[in-house]
């Protein structure tokens, strides 16, 4: 997640990680991890094992995914919305009720 500010959570935080910042801390499901106040992204990164890197020249920060466990924290498909070849957003959850084989490939 790319951000230019450390004093607020990145917009995609909840969608990409499942962690939402609430008054009681960072919460995912029934689990809440207390956070420093006022909010500080580097504190959140430290507590959740998400590495934070900084590009000084462009004033950008990037927050990596959670470490210390497996890439999947749940077997439930996370919300994935991606554009198709016409630029139209497609939500994978729209295929609920059907078995899906998703294949990642690349032009390279």
């Amino acid at each position, binding site marked *: 997640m790319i951000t230019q500010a450390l004093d607020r959570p990145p917009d995609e935080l909840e969608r990409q990680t499942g962690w939402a910042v609430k008054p009681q801390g960072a919460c995912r499901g029934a689990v809440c991890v207390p956070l420093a106040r006022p909010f500080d992204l580097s504190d959140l990164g430290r507590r959740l094992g998400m590495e934070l890197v900084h590009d000084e020249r462009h004033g950008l920060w990037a927050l*990596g995914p959670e*470490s210390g466990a497996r890439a999947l924290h749940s077997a439930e498909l996370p919300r994935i919305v991606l554009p198709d070849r016409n*630029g139209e957003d497609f939500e994978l959850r729209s295929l609920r009720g059907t078995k899906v084989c998703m294949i990642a490939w690349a032009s*390279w």
Partner: protein
Amino acid sequence: MREELHPAIEVVTVALDTGGAEAAVPWIDRAKTTHPALIDAAHLLDELLGIVNVPTGVWIDEQGMLVRPPEPAFPWRARPLPDELLAQLPAITVEQLREAGRMRIDPEAYVAALRDWVANGSRSRFALPPEQVIARSRPRSREASRAAACFELGQHLHRTGHPGDAVPWFREAHRLAPDNWTYKRQAWTLADPLQGATSEYDSDWLTDVRKIGAENYYPPVDL
């Protein structure tokens, strides 16, 4: 494969391409796809699911639960190209194809497993319970988390018109996650479409594949 199994199953393809539609659409159109063919210019799937190479498959059941984690997914075995066609290709491509021919893949077993799951659903021995799906996904260390952040910065800078500034971040991602071929192949391609040696990177596809041995390029699929 899709024509054979649809509508009992839907195939969704996702192009992991920093180049976005410009890079992926010509391939999608050439394949005349009839399934959802999506484009992931930010490599979101890498991060969400732990994908480190392509092609990688994930199976999702009717309830939206993963029943197989990311794993190498070859629907067929590529046939060797005839000599007259090989003679028209750049030398590096011929060398790459030679190494690719040594890779350990088992499309027959993978497709048979997929057919079994389509026929038997949760009773299929290839449909894994949630705890196994999670346990079989890649472990994520602090280095892997940092590599993901570096790769994302590199991609962002490349896409926003700073390709030179992206290179050090890609290099750092490669150093931190040397077994992540997605990070390497994507960045190499941006410097040289053939993924050959360049001044930007210390490594290239052929060199790195030969270093580990082509037979180890894809991990064996534990069906």
